[in-house]
């Protein structure tokens, strides 16, 4: 069976301001030849730090950011080749949940109208059917029907994220892009939303493209994980393989940097893998491996030759000295 989503060599470039009056416009490559695929009913996590290109990758996949080149096969059809009207029709199958539940809901609209709007725009069903669907979705995401006519400010952050999820589900999408859906929420509320997303995935057979910087969250929600660094995927593997046996030094560093209850100051915990500094600038990326300057095991070749993503067992890793 072919995957629901198959992305090949996706590249996104942003033009920067001209250098001088007649100078050239430098180009920033935010996403560099990224390929991945996603089966129906599975969740792919994209992890990375700010500026790694994880959000841009997701946005380019669903054409909210223009890709410079590449292919996005969704159910056998290249989304990047569709004309505007065809793409608009396709959007009912791909929906999005944003990070900030405060700025992504119209403060002047009642929440029932917010959730119904995608159906109005796509002209799905009769008005009565749409109303019934909104009520059903409210129940599905754990809100009460008597809250339908309230305004967004009358809800807490977690409840607002539930409203965003209900809105994203109105058109019965197959793919849900979740862009840091819980990072604006308190940890106790995070758990509520993560459990909801996990339940919806099973009940509705949804597929997620799940963007997060939090490895614990990704481990909880995702079946497969891709780690991005400076616009490229540096490691991609099924969840357990990635967390139990990370191959790329950057993945190892990420795992050892994430705070965990298993590490105790009282027991003299000292971080095993330390990396210093910040990621290099994407405007002028290094010639070799982008991580070489921060990598504890970098050799001469790492600074000269860019490593390619190669398969080792279940894992694909882009590193000259993996393991």
């Amino acid at each position, binding site marked *: 069976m072919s995957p629901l989503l198959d992305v090949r060599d996706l590249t996104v470039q942003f033009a920067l301001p001209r250098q001088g009056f007649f100078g050239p416009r430098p180009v920033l490559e935010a996403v560099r030849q990224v390929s991945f695929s996603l089966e129906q009913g599975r969740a792919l996590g994209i992890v990375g*730090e*700010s500026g790694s290109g994880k959000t841009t990758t997701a946005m380019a996949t669903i054409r909210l950011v223009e890709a410079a080149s590449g292919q996005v096969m969704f159910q056998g059809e290249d989304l990047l080749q569709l004309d505007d009207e065809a793409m608009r029709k396709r959007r009912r199958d791909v929906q999005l949940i944003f990070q900030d539940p405060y700025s992504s809901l119209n403060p002047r609209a009642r929440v029932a109208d917010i959730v119904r709007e995608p159906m109005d725009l796509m002209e799905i069903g009769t008005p009565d059917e749409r109303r019934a669907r909104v009520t059903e979705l409210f129940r599905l995401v754990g809100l009460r029907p008597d809250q339908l006519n309230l305004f967004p400010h009358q809800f*807490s952050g*977690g409840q607002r994220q539930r409203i965003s999820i209900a809105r994203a589900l109105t058109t019965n999408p197959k793919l849900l892009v979740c862009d840091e859906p819980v990072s604006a929420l*308190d*940890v*106790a*509320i*995070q*758990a*509520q939303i*993560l*459990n909801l997303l*996990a339940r919806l995935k099973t009940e509705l057979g949804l597929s997620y493209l799940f963007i997060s*910087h*939090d*490895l*614990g*969250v990704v*481990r*909880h929600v995702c079946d497969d994980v891709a780690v991005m660094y400076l616009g490229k995927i540096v490691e991609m593997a099924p969840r*357990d393989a990635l*967390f139990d046996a990370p191959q790329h030094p950057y993945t190892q*560093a*990420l*795992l*050892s*940097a*994430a*705070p*965990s*209850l*298993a*590490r*105790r*100051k*009282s027991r003299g*915990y000292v*971080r095993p893998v*330390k*990396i*210093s*500094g*910040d990621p290099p600038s994407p405007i002028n990326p290094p010639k070799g491996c982008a991580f070489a300057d921060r990598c504890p095991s970098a050799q001469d070749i790492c600074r000269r030759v860019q490593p390619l993503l190669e398969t080792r067992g279940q894992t694909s890793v882009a590193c000259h000295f993996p393991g």
Partner: protein
Amino acid sequence: MSALLQIEDLRVTFNTRHGPVTALDSVSLSVNAGETLGVVGESGCGKSITALSVMGLIPSPPGKIAGGAIRLAGEDLTRATEARMRALRGAEMAMIFQEPMTSLNPVFTVGDQIAEAIMLHQKVSADQAFRDAVALLDRVGIPSPDRRAREYPHQLSGGMRQRVMIAMAVSCRPKVLIADEPTTALDVTVQAQIFDLLNEIQRDFGAAIILITHDMGAISEMADRVAVMYAGRVIEQGLADDVLDLPQHPYTRGLISCIPALGKGEDTLREIPGVVPPLHLLGAGCAFAERCAHRAPRCDSEKPLLRAQGHHPVACHAVAEGRI
């Protein structure tokens, strides 16, 4: 011997449009030299208000310290004059804020800003203060500190800005360092660097650190002792190991079990239902009762007090009655 910093029965109120609300109620905390106290809780639990009270930075009005004492090496800060507080802030105690970009002045170089802090508290020349600033930048791990000292905050990355904040905070070797969510705005690898730096500085200077965070993982890696706050009160307090391994309060248990772990976890996270209640709606009973699985009639009528149960103090009727 009494602790270096001792907060006793602190009560802070704010006048709001809902009338006066109690933001902190009978908060007692202490921290010794060379020790890290972690203060943990969700937004709105009073963690930052506690820190601001110690620094004498509660906006007044509308806020006011309505009772209790804050003793720094025996001196009660709640009775100190503003001039005395200004002499203490920076020299004896310092604070690192969450967002380094808004806490640095955008129109001065970072070297000048650190030098200014040094000159406020020490009798040194401007040249010497700037050289000290460069040495501090080097100490907090900023590469080419000579050049960086002459740059403006916007030219630095988020992690470097937070290092500048730390350099400024430790410039006079304060006895108490308060870090209020110092890494929330930073990436995880940079967060790890900042945590390691704070630990190093503590070893060098022997400072007492109060780390305010919502992240139990950060508590585990950084803290010797922990205080869990909820709705303006300390509800559980003890050695980090005791609180993390044998949490007693249902809220603490919830906070620990709702973290998606890096290791193999269960499929469903334990959730804490509901949200922190607004302070003006707190009733006579336990503030957590609404969200608690062990709620009994007594929880709605009587506030549980912090008292020793087993290993460490906890404020919960259900624990006191042996129901959990």
